[in-house]
Structure formats: structure tokens, C-alpha cells
């Protein structure tokens, strides 16, 4: 079972890396979003998922009996929210590029690169 989950996570991450390497900004965005999903899968495997019982301490007991790992699930939940927020921010940026430049080709988006490019010094009056 662990192998299956790990392999799924690996396939998702591989596909994500392929997408991130694209010059198309939308593909890059999708790749980053997919990558965070792959990592969530990995976090799930990192926790103990052999049991399907909810992590609730039974009445009268002091410690948690055998159950699903609640900490890993809390981590994944947080990671999902963060990944979602970042995807939305990046999507807004890409949308802005599309509106301003009319393209989502990373090669055409080089305004920051040329913004502060070194210039050859002009001849000075000394």
C-alpha cells in the first residue's frame, strides 16, 4: 500500500516538474499547483495511515489508541490552504501579465530583466 501511494506521489511530482519547465506561464502555474498536491500525498504517506479509525480518545482513557495519525492530516490541511493561496496569487499575476502584455510566453515577459540592465557609461564632462 505504501509503495502504491509513494509511486502515485512520484508520478504526480514528475508530471508537475515537466509542466513547470514549460515556457508557458499557465502551464508553469498548473505545474506548481500539481506539485503541491504531490507533496500533500507524500505528507500523507509520512503519517501512519494503517488505521482508518478517527483519532478520538475513548471515554475514560488518557492516551490515543490505534487510529489514523491526526498530526499528518493537520499538516496536509494547512499545506492545502497555503498551496491554494499561493496558486491564487500566482494566477492573479499571470492574469495581469496576459492583460498587460497579451502573452503568457515567459520569453516575452522580460520587463523586470530590462528594468535595471547595466548600461554602458556615457562620456563624462570632466
Amino acid at each position, binding site marked *: 500500500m505504501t509503495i502504491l501511494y509513494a509511486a502515485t506521489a512520484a508520478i504526480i511530482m514528475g508530471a508537475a516538474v515537466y509542466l513547470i519547465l514549460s515556457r508557458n506561464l499557465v502551464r508553469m502555474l498548473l505545474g506548481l499547483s500539481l506539485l*503541491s498536491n504531490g507533496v500533500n500525498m507524500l505528507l500523507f504517506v509520512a503519517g501512519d495511515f494503517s488505521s482508518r479509525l478517527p483519532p478520538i480518545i475513548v471515554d475514560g482513557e488518557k492516551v490515543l489508541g490505534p487510529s489514523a495519525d491526526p498530526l499528518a492530516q493537520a499538516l496536509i490541511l494547512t499545506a492545502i490552504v497555503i498551496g491554494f493561496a499561493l496558486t491564487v496569487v500566482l494566477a492573479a*499575476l499571470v492574469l495581469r501579465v496576459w492583460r498587460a502584455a497579451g502573452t503568457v510566453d515567459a520569453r516575452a*515577459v522580460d520587463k523586470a530583466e530590462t528594468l*535595471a540592465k*547595466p*548600461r554602458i557609461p556615457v562620456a563624462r564632462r570632466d
Partner: protein
Amino acid sequence: MTDPLLLVAPVAWPLLLAAVAMLVRRRPWAAELAGGIGVAGMAFASLLLFHRATGGRPLPMTVFGGWPRAFAVSFDARLPGALLVLVTALVAVGVFLFGHADIRERRRRSGYDALLLALCAAVNGAFLTGDLFNLYVWFELALVAALGLLTIDRRLGQIDGAIRYAAFAMLGATFILIGIGLIYGSFGTLDLATLTSEIAARPASVSTTLAAVLMLSGLALKSGLAPFHIWLPVAYPAAPITVAALFGGLLSKMGFYALLLIVGVLFRGGGATAPVLGWIAAATMLLCAAGALAQTDMRRLIAYHVIAQVGYMTAGLAAATEAGMAAAVFYMVHSIIVQANLFLGVGAIRRATGSWNLNHAGGMTRSNPIFAFLFAVPILSLAGIPPLSGFWAKLVVLRATIDGGMPWLALAALVAALLTLISMAFLWSEACWTIPAGDRRVRPVPPAMLAGMALLSAATLAIGLMPDRLFLLTRLSARMLVNLGAGA
């Protein structure tokens, strides 16, 4: 009850005021007032926190929610964290004062004050946390606030810089998260102190080695270490100059602080990554100090130096000794203040001469003598001229690398220091001494800008003239970091 409140105050107070500033941002004066209250309260809280951390009664570690440690979010005012929170507050106050003259109403309406406070809160959170996952969360919060600040004018150049920054930072964060997952899978906890003793007790396995490599690359991406430095000099110059000052001062150091915790403490000098660390440090210092020499845009020139400075800190870390860690912490404190001040100074030059380009700048000494004095402090400090803070910082790093058996790294640091000196001399003479091209009139620098710079320059002078106290603090910090696992 007051102890936990004080512990989270440097994080919670600016976040609270950020919400207020966001609500009142339609009235720029109200937003600025909220920002001022937030920054002042943060400075007060971090002073108290620092006083408690260095005084006789250190704050106890606080785990929220009544859970045993290692199962919940924990905050811990350890020494390097408490010291760095204080320095963060100092930089925030300086940047805020400078911003009074630099930030126009349009930017305040776009939520500048709220985002600035949120960024400071996230940085403080990362410095105070005692939990690996929480560290990741603060990183991401800082990223979102930073992206907002970077694109505040909605210009295409800023959007483009933000996309580069976001793509690199998200990739880096994912690497860190994979590392966290692998560590959790092996050890079942994410508490830093518990993990440190657990990792030291067990032989290195495939998953811990993989986690160390992934986290090193993720944090190198975030803090702009070579060969992942390419995004930083492109993204930072696009930001408003006060924002660039915060980025250069705080964000790259936040990445390095995590590197110090994870690679230096958790994996005891890097484990499998130890040999690479020295090479990364040397490459970063040399490449970026040389890169700065080619620049004519002042913002990009300073941005290259930001990365080169992180290289010096990494050199201290690569020595893998207690002295090396103390050197890295000392360098961090020095560099946070000086980098922010340099960006502010460049902003003031732009205000006075109307250009970011060094070829068009000039005449600052004659027209603004007070500014020239304030600007000389960070310039000479970064160049490593005694007795300013940069001299002591470089000295301790050099000694740590030589004592740590890495004389070649010390040599690389010396060559990079020479390149930095040349670059700083170039910046100073072009901006301050030369006659501006075409006899442009040089305007005076507004007093609010001078006040912000004066605060940071005074801090640099104080460190330079009285380094003993900071030496003591950094040695204590290194001792705390090395003993982190022992007390768990």
C-alpha cells in the same frame, strides 16, 4: 498569562494592526497611523522580549492549545531569535520613517502599510518558532505579503519580477515541505529540539540524507545562494525602494536563519551536504561580488551585494563549529541593518538626482552633506573598513573558516571582500563625489528619509564601536543553538 502574550506580541500585534490598516486604507493618513502604531508596538514588544531573553528570567517555551510539546505549534524566545526580532523591529522603524517621505498616497491606498506589517509579523514568526512546520507556514505568509508589496504599483516590470520570485520561492518551499514530510515520516515529530537530539542519536538513513539535500536546495532557492541566485537581482529592483530595503534586510536573512537552524543545528553542520556548503558559499561570494561590479543601476548593484553577504554567512556556517555559528549570527545582525540602510540610501539618491542610474547620479556630498555622512556608514561597513560593523563581521567569519580547516574559503572571502570594496568605492564616488551629468540640479533629501537612515547608521556605528556586547550575544546564541537538542 502575560508571558505567552509577550512571546507572541511581535507577531500578533503587527498582524492585528495590519488588519486595521487594511480596513482604513482608503484614508491614507489613517493607514499610515495604523502602520506607525503597529511598528512602534512591535519595537516595544521586541525590546521587552530581548530584555527578558538576555536577563535573568528567560521566557519559558510556550506550546499553544495545551498539548504536550512536539504535537502543537510552539513559540520559543531562544537567543538568536530574540536578537533577530529586535533587529527586525529596528529595520522596520527605519523603513517606516523613510517611507513617510517616500510612499505616496496611492501606494498607501493599495494597502502598503498592511502588507508591510504582515511581512514583519511573518519574519518575526519565523524567528520565534520552535517547530519545523510552523517555520514553513511563516515562510509562505512572508511570501504572500512580499508578493503584494512587490506588485504594489501593478506595473508590468513588477508583475514580471513577482512571477520570477513566486515561481522560485514556491519551488523552494515545496522542496522544504518534501524534506519536512520525509523527516516526519522517519521521526514522528517536527519539534526542533526533539528532532535535533533524535537525528544526532540515529545513524544517517536514506530519507534523512534526502531530506537534508532537499531542504538545503529549498533554502538556497529562498535565500538566493548560488547557483539559484539569478531571480534575486531581477526581482528586488522592481520593488519600491522601501520594500527592497525590507526584502534585502529581512527576507534573504530569514531564509538564511532557517538554513542555520536546519542545516547547522538539525543536521549538525549539514550531514551529507557539509562538503557542498563551503563551495556554495565561495561561489556565492565571488559570483555576486563580481556581478555587482558590472552594474550601473544602483538597486541591482545593492541586490547583488545582498546575495554576496548571504554567501559570507554561509561560509561561517560551513565551518561547522560553534565559532562559525556565532560568526554567522554576527554577520546576520550586521548585514540586516547595513543592507536595509544601503537600499534606503539609494532611494534618497534617486529622490535627489532623479535617476537610479549611477552614470546620471552625482554631487551628493556637496548638496546633502548630512546624507553623505549617513550613507558613508553603511558603505564603509559593507566594504569592511574598521571600526565599523562589517569589519568585525568579516573578521569573525575569516577566523571561523581558518579555524574550521577551510583556508581556501577564507581566501575566497578575502577576494570577495576586495571586490566589494571596489564596488562600494565606485558607488560612493559616482553618487557622491562626481559632478552630475549635464549640470543637473541636485534636490535636498527630505528629513524623514534622513531620520530613517540615521537610526540604522547609528546602530551600525554602535555595533562597530562596541562589538564586545554583540560578540557575547552571538557566542551565547551559538551555544544555545548547539545545545538545542540536549535540553529536550
